[in-house]
């Protein structure tokens, strides 16, 4: 199976990402939520898999992001849906931090 080629896009300064409030960015038409957990940056799709909610408006605690619409939750690092009503995992994107700038990898 051919792995899609990833293109890394600069999206934010790592120091601007608040551990208590994810940041929403848009990359080539896709809304992405950026998180900081224990000093590391992560990225997932911003739109929840359960409804038309923006995860960047959600509540972050203990490495989980809770969707603001219906209270379901995902593990930020893996995207795994861990709390009802969310059952479908959220897509994660690889993150690189280079000289304080956060880059998110998206398929070409």
């Amino acid at each position: 199976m051919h792995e899609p080629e990833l293109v890394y896009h600069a999206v934010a300064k790592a120091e601007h990402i608040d551990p208590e409030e994810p940041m929403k960015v848009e990359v080539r038409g896709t809304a992405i939520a950026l998180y900081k957990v224990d000093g590391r940056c992560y990225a997932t799709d911003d739109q929840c898999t359960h409804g038309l909610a923006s995860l960047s408006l959600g509540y972050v605690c203990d490495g989980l992001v809770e969707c603001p619409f219906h209270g379901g939750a995902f593990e930020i690092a893996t995207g795994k849906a861990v709390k009802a009503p969310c059952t479908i995992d959220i897509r994660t994107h690889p993150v690189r931090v280079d000289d304080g700038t956060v880059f998110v990898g998206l398929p070409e």
Partner: protein
Amino acid sequence: MGTVIVGAGQAGAWVAKSLRDCGYVDPVTLVGDEPHLPYERPPLSKAVFQDKGALEAARIWPPEDYASWNVELRLASSVDSIEPAERQVRLADGARLSYTHLVLATGARARRLGVKTDRFANLHYLRTREDSERLAAAVQPHTRVVVIGGGLIGLEVAAAARGRGATVTVVESADRLLGRVIDREFGEYIAARHRASGVAIRCASTIECIVGQERATEVVLSDGSTLGCDVLVAGIGALPNHELAQAAGLAVRDGILVDEFTRTSDPAIYAAGDVARFRDPHTGTYRRLELWENAQNQAIACAHAIAGRPRAYAPVAWGWSDQFDLNLQFVGDATGGDHEVRRGQVGAHRFIRFFFRGERLAGAAGVNAGREIRAVRRMLERRVSPDPQRLADLSVRLESLIPA
């Protein structure tokens, strides 16, 4: 003999799973009259209009989970009667299931308009997956949809149908929308949002009669005006399915009466979810919560009681409703108070209104303010009533007002 659960909806499914989480090892049988694996109902009124995959996603757990929990599923199976003296339930197909513990999670059914309206093929109710699929198929661009009932179901259907390009009118008998959930001012805000999207809202209006033979073609309202219709949807409340319990001699009153440990008047029988009218230990009064979170959490409490680890269930009501670009959430009692305070901007469609009874925070309702509502839920659970000025102050994080 184990536990038999009658009702394979959200509550029934959560009782089954939670029993295993509690270390319960006896047999567990989950009996449901629908042919589907347990699914949650909120998506039925919304997502179905947008996404064919949404109904599959409404399924709570995949089939292999029930197998791995050693939970026996008996779907498309109705229960005819409960025999409490024999500790048995009798299924419609003649089978008898013996139980040590019985859970009634039979839910609720949509209230009908009346026997004379049963003939209309284009009259829809919304409770099951089939109802949802049938309604989605019937609503197309320019379909004239008349929604009877301005409650949560009616308004969600109205918004979703309008999103599909249908012509929609909502008819509500009370003089405001969502009167059982939010206060008048909030109801007017919701009505304005619907009108801004082209939904006609007719409050203080009842149906005088419905014209048509096999299909309803016209609705006549109490003021004599008429509405042509292609599709009629009635969202006028739900009736608890407590008949089995009543026939078996259990105490019922608009639902199966249970205590704060979900126990009915029979020591071997429990009830949870939409069907259960439970005692709130804080107030001593009884209520029924037709809410998603109640189906889940009351079921978990039920499993704990059966597994010998009873925990009093004293929920703070919390629910949501997605209509157009609004995520409405309500917590506690949001129908009004003797004073209130607002946080955020109504014009920006991002705000919360807090309701106080004297000094006590009684409830709140908000729009597109999910993270904040989460904090308000914690406040109500902890019975904390912050200073109204601080609740209104956007520079104060609501989480900081909850004691650690």
